[in-house]
Each structure stands twice: as structure tokens, then as C-alpha cells.
């Protein structure tokens, strides 16, 4: 079957996300590796970076679709209202994105509906009438979890019952206990990164220790068709008009 080459722009949070998503899509025969592929992946975003780019990405020249893959778990830097900063959840992220979508006339329900109705579990796709392009949003991992990143999607792709992963989970739990006794200048792993610790530990114990997510996907250490991953790929195909 000939490989599918979508046209458009996709915004993701960082390099890890970029490589993982490209390799996951490749496992579904969607290839966006080459320079010739007309889909550009933008991944210089910091925590709020992808969201900051939403309005200008939709106003950018051209009429091709634009997609945003956003971490649901993020941290807002300290402000006058929240002097210690604030952990942002799914509803915070969706509010921020929604406001920017509205500013560029993306079709949204009026009045505003509850989040689960506006943001389907299969991902958000709508259209900006003014700028004549389709727009998609995917909140990692599955548009439903309150806090999530790409690692949460990837953990659904670890083969069921994999003993090394069970060990990685136990080891990470143990490490989190130790980390509380570490000096504050050199902290060890925090609870918010538990999933990341589990995955990197698991990858450390494969034949090629320390593979990146993308590499491990390509080498098929990860599976490719959990229900979350399948839903993500289906959203991608709908947004970019692939069969």
C-alpha cells in the first residue's frame, strides 16, 4: 500500500513528542520523516509554547490544516494570583486553547458546553471560517485524563503483562520514596514524572539500553494499536484528510 503523505502543520510540545508521534504514525503507514513531506512538525514549544502559537498558526499563510497536540499536564509560572505557580489541568488547558480558537473564528458551540461535549474523546476538529482552514486539537493522552503527557499514551503501548515494565513500575515507586530524602538543590524524580521514570527505566533494560521513544517505536518494542493510539491516529487522518 503506498504510504500516505499529509499536507499541513502540526504543533507538538517538544522533540520527544515529535519523534514519538512520527514513529507511531509511521507504524500506521503515515510517513512524515522526509524534508519533502509537506507536513511540518513544529516543536519548539515550551510548556505554554504550543498554546501561544495557536492564533498565529491559524492565521499563517496557506489553507492547509493545522493540528495542536498539547500536554494536559503543565505548570503555570508564579503570578500575583498564584505566587507559587499552578499546576494546570485539562480544563485549564482547554479554556486557554478555546479562547484562542474563538479569537480566530474557529467554529465552536455557543453557548460554551461542558468540556467533554466540546472536546470529544476522539479529538477536536473544527474549521476557522475566516481563515479557511481545518483546525484540530488533541489533549494528551486521550482528551479525557486530567493530567497527561505523551508518556501516558506510550504506556498504553507497552505489551500487556511485560515483566520488565512491572519491574520498572515497582522500581520507580521505590525511587519516588527515596527521592523525598534527597537534598532540595539536587532533587530526584518527582511524582508528576512517575510515568516518565517508568518508561525510561523499562527502556534502560532492553537489549539496546536507553533507546528513545521514537527508536523503540520503530523497533517495535512498543506496540502501535492500543485504543488510545488508534484514536489518535484516526484523529490525525481525519484532520489531514487521509483515507
Amino acid at each position, binding site marked *: 500500500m503506498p504510504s500516505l503523505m499529509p499536507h499541513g*502543520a502540526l*504543533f507538538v510540545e517538544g522533540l520527544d513528542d515529535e519523534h514519538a508521534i512520527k514513529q507511531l504514525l509511521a507504524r500506521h503507514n503515515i510517513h512524515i520523516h522526509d524534508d519533502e513531506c509537506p507536513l*511540518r512538525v*513544529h516543536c*519548539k*514549544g515550551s510548556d505554554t*509554547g504550543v498554546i*501561544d*502559537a495557536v*492564533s*498565529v*498558526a491559524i*492565521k*499563517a*499563510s*496557506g489553507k492547509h490544516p493545522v493540528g495542536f497536540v498539547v500536554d494536559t499536564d503543565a505548570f503555570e509560572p508564579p503570578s500575583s494570583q498564584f505566587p507559587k505557580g499552578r499546576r494546570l489541568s485539562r480544563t485549564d488547558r482547554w479554556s486557554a486553547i478555546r479562547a484562542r480558537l474563538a479569537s480566530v473564528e474557529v467554529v465552536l458551540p455557543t453557548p460554551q458546553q461542558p468540556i467533554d461535549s466540546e472536546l470529544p474523546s476522539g479529538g477536536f476538529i473544527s474549521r476557522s471560517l475566516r*481563515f479557511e482552514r481545518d483546525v484540530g486539537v488533541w489533549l494528551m493522552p486521550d482528551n479525557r485524563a486530567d493530567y497527561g503527557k505523551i508518556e501516558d499514551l506510550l504506556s498504553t503501548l507497552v505489551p500487556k503483562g511485560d515483566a520488565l515494565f512491572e519491574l520498572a513500575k515497582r522500581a520507580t515507586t521505590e525511587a519516588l520514596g527515596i527521592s523525598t530524602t534527597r537534598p532540595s538543590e539536587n532533587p530526584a524524580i518527582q511524582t508528576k514524572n512517575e510515568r516518565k521514570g517508568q518508561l525510561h527505566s523499562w527502556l534502560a533494560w532492553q537489549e539496546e539500553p536507553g533507546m528513545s521513544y521514537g527508536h523503540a517505536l520503530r523497533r517495535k518494542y512498543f506496540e502501535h494499536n492500543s485504543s488510545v493510539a488508534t484514536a489518535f491516529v484516526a484523529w490525525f487522518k481525519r484532520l489531514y484528510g487521509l483515507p
Partner: protein
Amino acid sequence: MLTHVDLARYRGFKTYKVRGLSRVNLFVGMNNSGKTALLEGIQFLASGGDPSVLAQSAIRRGEVVVRRPDAPTLVEIAHFFFGHQIEPEADFSITGNNGYTPVTVKVISLEDRQSKSEDLPKVPRRVGQFAIKIDGGRRRTPEPRIYPLTREGVVQMEDPAPWRFEGYERLLIDRMSRFQGSPSYFIGTDQVDSVSLALMMDEVAMLGRDSMLADAMRLLDPKLEYARMLSGASTLGFRGSKGGVIAKLQGVERPVPLGSLGEGMRRMLTLASALSTTRGGYLFIDEVDTGLHYSVMAKMWELIITTATAYDIQVFASTHSYDCIYGLAKLFRKQPDLKQVFSVQRIEAERQDSVAFEPEEILAAIREDIEIR
């Protein structure tokens, strides 16, 4: 200050809205997107419907018929109308919120007017039946300006003004427009030569703005006392294909060539001179990045924004250069206050309105490598 402009049937724009203009405005877009036409249209409005503004833009575009050097320039006025058609009742208009009545240009039949021959300007031979009527402008609507069309569809809009100096013969194509009070000036893409700079600096001198020019140049080099052009008549000084511009620096007894102060200083001097002549008015700069290396773009923007703000000049510029936008973003990061007086608009004649970008969006576009042009 203009914040809104509407065009109807002007050049390639059937209808076009521009909103959210600010003190300094940058129009971006592909080649042939209509950026230059938009600049010219806004100047025509800002000048209050000055016919010489139309004539000068036609000359820049080569839409003129010149028969003899001392004969009047004849403007092929059809190109200003959407669809390039001169027919009865054809018209275009430019409207803005600067308190002026809309400026309109209409094709009228000469028989309609109960005219006496003294009313019309000196009429070229082979006059046809039609004329161009320009209306609108300042708050108190002035007399309409009427120009007969020849049968070939050209119009004589102004007296010839040949200018001769040292063997250079040129039409005084880019004179200041002060038709209804507010000065306006258009810097076209061809103006990077010595003659244009000399004319500009003469204008600065005649307006008594030499110290304003020096202040502006000091944004680029704080030790600069003044810059001036040598006449080239003597064998002293620095000569060369670009003509001699010297700069006097504080603490240095003899002046140095302007170029030794850094990349692009001649062009900066041209921009600073143009700003100095349009105090309280409007400046239009087509392809603002012309003649400047990418490394000095941020400096150029600092010069323009700071001077325009200090001297109440509304600036409209165009570019299709990425480096120009990158330089702007670099300046915004260093001096966030300058963002507030700036607007960036993408122009596409196929749309019906411009796409306005907030300064924060420009920063995001550069950071994320998003194409906004």
C-alpha cells in the same frame, strides 16, 4: 492617526478593509500581493486627494507617457481603476477614520459640467469627452479637482518640473505632498542612490530639521554629532560612486566617511531624513528592508519606531523579507514597550480584508517558524 482604511475598486482591490492600524505599520505578503498599491492608496487618502500623489505613483510604476523632456507628464489613469477600465461612472474610493471625507476619483462626462474654459487647467490637445474628478479630502470638502482625459485615456495632472543638476536630469518625482496640510512622503524601491539622498537632505535643511536628523542618527551611534553630504564639487573629502557623506563624531577632530560607522548607514540616513521631513504627517516606505543587511534590521526598526513616536509621524512600510520580520521580533524581545505602537498586516488582494497580527503573535511566529507572509 489612521486606524481603519477601506478601499473600493482601487487597483487590484475590489473591496478591501484594513483594521487595527497603529503608529508604525508593516504590510507583509507575497510579491504582487497589493502591498505597494495599498501604501499608495493610503498616501492618497492621507494627502487629502493630492493629484500629485497619483501622478508620482504612476511615474514610479512607469504608467506614464513622456514625449519630450520638457513636456508635461501624462498619466495612464486607467490602471488606478479596478479592472483597468475607463468608462463613464467608473470610480474608486479610499476612506479612512482620520476625519477626512472619503477621497474618490470618478470618470465624468465633460458635457455634464456647465464649465467655463477658465475652470479647467490648461488642456492638452486631443481632449476627449471625459475627465477625471477627484473629490474629498479634509474635513471641509475642498473644490473638486477635474482633469480632462485625452482620447487615449491619459491625463495631465501637474506642470512639468524637470530638475537639472550636474548633468543629471530627472523629474522631481518624489516631492513632498503638503496638499492639505499634513506632509506625506513616499520612499519607493528605487530610491537608494546619491541623488535621492541629496534631495532628501536638502529638504531636511529647508525645513530647519537638521538637529532632528542628528538626534535620529544618534540612536544608531551616540557619538554622532552630524552627518552631511559633500557637494562633490571639490577634490577634498571622500568621493566614490556613492557620493561623499561624512559623519562628525564627538571627540574625533576630522569627519569620517559615513560608511565607516557601520553597515547600512547610508540607508539609515535616508530613512532618518525622510522621517525628519514628515514630522506630524505620514511616511510610506516600500520594501523597507532595501539596502540593509539582516544584521541591522533591529536597529532600523528602532530608528523608525522611536522617531515616529517622538515626532508624531504615522509610518506605513512593506516587506516580503523574512529577515525584516525577524529583526522586528528581535527588537520586540529587547524592548517590549515598542510593541504597543506597532501593527503587522498580511495583504492578499484576493481576500477582502487584511490579516492583522499582534506583536506577541509575531514573536510566536518567529519562535515556531510559522510563515505569516
